[in-house]
């Protein structure tokens, strides 16, 4: 019974992937996709009811429970969105049925990989899972087989596989560090064991290991200067994938980083991982903020904003301390929900306007009020304006760090402000002003978008105590 939940989170997507690969016909597969995602979400939710025991390969604790539920939830809503999105893609003929079949299979495969990465109790297994997730997304980014899509996928693939290599090297080094203490064999790669003995590991090895892991997984997180793949992959792939990339894959990579950070934090004479993460976080935040100003492609713009927010999150976790960690977790959750909601909106907008060029769309609140105001709401949220959730997390990050590190917090604040400017500069042209571009009716599913925004709104006003205590436990766990 107890093992089922974990197994289910893995098996349902796996089976679904196989099934979808086999089944023809778009409508059926789309529905199946939604159903599978929903089931996965339910099973993940059941983790809160009964907590399974962690085995040698699978692990569940407060930390990854949060991640899993978030992942499966966004996975579910995205599948709903993708159903309507893909339908439109088929009508316009951008995708042929065979590719749709492939797409759905890959979608479930991706879900599987991410869940595996999250519940793997073994650093090797986790690595495999994350790389699998990367490769599936590579294939999906390239799915339109256009000039741009191929280039984006190729870029993503090359940079991604270098990341793979670096991460693997780091993993090996961790094993090497653990082996003399724990002894040869599987145990030396099992989280639960590693954590207990980390204090005695060889610090020099751990340091080198962390450098490689930071760069390896940091590439997936999209930290500057390793971010290069991210904007193009977001811009050229199908929008559901952009949503999943921003909303989930980055988190999964971040999760890996956090795990290793915990490991290092336990070792007295290893370097503090904090400063490295803080530095990269700040660089990413400020850099991405400035990059927002010259963007002409709407999806690419929001991709950069993802980089910015990942920077903020990594900064928060790098600063450490219960409050900052709490803020980091909250910010990560809020960002996942908001950013995917934005991409839902953007996907439909791009379909309605028939382009992703910001210059060709305008006055959206006039032509398509629901989409337009949805986008405005999303941007307001992502820019960190109240009463939406991100304001709370940014408030916590900045105000809690300012007392400790005034200058760093100030730099972060400047980054946030610059980003605000960049986002609204474009929002003005997209949502307001004279209407530009075609104004045909949009057949879209607004439910996922507003569901996310509603959650974000609620979190900004009122957070259920259970959630809070959960986050606080995790924050304490992260130290």
């Amino acid at each position, binding site marked *: 019974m107890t093992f089922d939940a974990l197994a289910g989170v893995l098996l349902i997507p796996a089976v679904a992937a196989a099934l979808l690969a086999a089944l023809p016909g778009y409508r059926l597969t789309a529905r199946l996709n939604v159903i599978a995602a929903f089931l996965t979400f339910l099973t993940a939710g059941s983790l809160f009811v009964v907590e399974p025991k962690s085995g040698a390969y699978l692990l569940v604790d407060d930390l990854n429970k949060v991640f899993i539920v978030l992942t499966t939830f966004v996975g579910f809503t995205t599948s709903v969105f993708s159903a309507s999105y893909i339908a439109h893609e088929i009508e316009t003929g951008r995708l042929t049925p065979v590719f749709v079949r492939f797409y759905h299979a890959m979608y479930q495969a991706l879900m599987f990989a991410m869940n595996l990465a999250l519940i793997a109790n073994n650093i090797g297994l986790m690595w495999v899972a994350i790389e699998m997730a990367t490769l599936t997304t590579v294939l999906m980014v390239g799915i339109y087989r256009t000039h741009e899509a191929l280039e984006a996928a190729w870029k993503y693939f090359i940079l991604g596989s270098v990341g793979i290599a670096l991460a693997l090297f780091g993993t090996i080094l961790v094993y090497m560090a653990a082996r003399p203490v724990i002894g040869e064999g599987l145990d030396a790669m099992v989280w639960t064991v590693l954590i207990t003995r980390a204090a005695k590991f060889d610090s020099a090895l751990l340091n080198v290991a962390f450098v*490689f892991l930071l760069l390896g997984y940091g590439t997936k997180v999209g930290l500057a200067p390793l971010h290069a793949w991210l904007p193009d992959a977001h811009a050229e792939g199908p929008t559901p994938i952009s949503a999943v990339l921003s909303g989930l894959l980055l988190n999964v990579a971040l999760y890996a980083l956090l795990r290793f950070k915990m490991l290092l934090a336990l070792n007295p004479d290893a370097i503090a991982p904090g400063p490295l993460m803080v530095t990269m976080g700040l660089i990413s935040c400020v850099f991405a903020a400035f990059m927002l100003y010259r963007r002409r492609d709407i999806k690419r713009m929001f991709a950069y904003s993802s980089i910015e927010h990942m920077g903020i999150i990594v900064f928060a976790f790098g600063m450490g301390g219960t409050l900052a960690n709490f803020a980091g977790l909250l910010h990560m959750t809020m960002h996942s929900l908001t950013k995917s909601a934005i991409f839902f909106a953007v996907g439909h907008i791009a379909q309605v306007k028939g382009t992703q060029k910001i210059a060709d769309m305008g006055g959206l609140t006039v032509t398509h009020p629901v989409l337009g105001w949805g986008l405005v709401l999303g941007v307001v949220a992502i820019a960190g304006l109240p009463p939406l959730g991100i304001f709370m997390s940014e408030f916590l990050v900045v105000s809690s760090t300012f007392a400790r590190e005034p200058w760093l917090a100030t730099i972060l604040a400047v980054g946030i402000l610059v980003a605000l400017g960049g986002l609204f500069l474009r929002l003005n042209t997209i949502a307001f002003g004279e209407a530009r571009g075609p104004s045909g009716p949009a057949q879209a599913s607004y439910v996922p978008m507003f569901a996310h925004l509603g959650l974000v709104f609620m979190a900004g006003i009122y957070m259920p105590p259970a959630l809070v205590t959960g986050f606080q436990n995790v924050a304490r766990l992260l130290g």
Partner: protein
Amino acid sequence: MTTTYALYCVAVLIALAPIAICFGTSARGNSVVYGSSLVVTLIISVLAVLSLFDQEVTGRIVLPLGLPWLGAHFAIDTLSSFFLFVVNLGGATASLFALGYGRHERAPDRVLPFYPAYLAAMNLVVLADDAFSFLVSWEFMSLSSWALVVAYHRERENLHAGYVYLLMAGFGTLALLLAFGLLAGANGDYVFESIRTSHPTAGLAALVLVLSILGAGSKAGVVPLHAWLPLAHPAAPSHVSALMSGVMTKVAVYGFVRIVFDLLGTPAWWWSMLVLAVGGITAVMGVLYALMQHDLKRLLAYHTVENIGIIYIGLGLALAFKAHDMPFAAALALTAGLLHVFNHSVFKSLLFFGAGAVLNATGERDMEHLGGLIHRMPQTAFVFLVGCVAISALPPLNGFVSEWLTFQAILLSPQLPSWGLKFIVPAVGALLALSAALAAACFVKAFGITFLGRPRTPAAADARETDSNSLAAMFFLSALCLLAGILPGLFIDALGPVTKMLVGVNMPRQTGLDWLTIVPIAESRSSYNGLLVFIFVTLSGSIAAFAIHRLASDKLRRGPAWDCGYPNPSPVTQYTASSFAQPIRRVYGTTVFAAREIGQMPPPGATVPARLSVQLRDLIWDMAYAPIAAFVGYASERLNVLQFLTIRRYLSLVFAALVLLLSVLAIWQ
């Protein structure tokens, strides 16, 4: 208990927003939204008055909202109840005005939903009792007003105004956020109660002061952070402009007072120098900017900046006296500042309503296209005139009282020991006097060019008197101007509890004195009696009129204007706004605005008209804002290269990062 009721009312306001969305563009939405917000704001203002007079804080309330382990704290103490009154008085009159004005609304679906939300946000800022809910409400206030500013989003300059506004608001909020971060400390103790008990070190306190000047000042429109204000305030619908100028700036002042006087503990004397300098410069710059405008609403917006300066002068003096432990003087200065807060909220709302009425009647904001409206809109003209007299600080109306009190406070300041103040206070006094005189000039221009003379355009020629609701709102406010002018004692005493809370004592009781005089310090020292002055002037005026009409002649004949025998039928030959401001521009503008007059004289015999154009440069924008914008542009242009590298180059970036980190490791141990 009051707090609870107030929160219920706010909840109603918030609930109005979705209702308004449901109404969409239907005409009934207008009356429903404005009507109910009128009622609610009236209720809250009554509550505020009640709670102003029971001294202790009425009912702290902690809702399970906001920061989970903290909750959202709300409370009404005397300070917040005063500002609550100001906010909701403005809100009520604005709603009343809008009941009529809103019928001509171009885009009700973009105004109605945000209007009650905006009111609610402003109320929440004043009610908030912990840093988080304060900032949430603060930024939500900015957000909702931003939405109202971009309501007419088809004009590009409105979008630009909204953009600048939102950026400055974000800047201000971040500044305040950092300030609260400092006050609360790393463990995040955001409740005002515990912030009061925590005593920051001198350096930290100073930093907090600077941050709160930046944060609250940027919202209040303190020079040089005022740039957004004259853009944003006019862009919104007029009743919203009234709220932004008359009320929201006051909420910003509230934030400043709350932090600096209440949370921050005992001030250091040099803080006041900072505040005074800011205030003085703001006052003069604001009115000079205003004088150079010919857009009526923008002129009013700029003039708000001036009044904010006056308020800050009062607050600065209060800080100085407080720092030197002269509580009665501090009470006087603070009363002056707060009274001006109230007064300005009254007459600035009144003036914006008038501008709105004119805009409705003529579709014009540019004074160069107006004129002669006094014939077509006599009642509006009358109330607008009252507003002009009041804002020009002329007796017997209310504007004069608060400036008079400020002067009295300045006259007390030679007793201040510290030398810096000895030098800066008289200078600030001079600036205050200068701004007062210039304000009069400014409103002679505003009223004279808009309402007097002959209509300059057909639109102005066949304007129509505005509707009864708007007039009711405006007459109410002008009555308030007169009342507060001739019976200032009532209002000064009402402020007693506030000053008692902030500086420990309150001014001597005024209402008991005979003839309702106000005597801030001592009978022998200074006194003013608006009531008597008013009575004398009216009496002697009417006596003269009566006598002349009875004893001498009362014959009257209409005829063409004499004008030294140069009859000029065309109204174009009248003095325009810019030509009226020309002498003052020549005196001040050349240095402050690098004003230049460029005359193009056609060659003799040419039939083309000669042109005279005036160039004004906003030096503050050029020096402070343009460089920042340029830098952002430059930086983003530079960094943008990184979007267009080859894969190999990206790999090299990764490679470089790796090598760098490894070398760091190598060097580290």
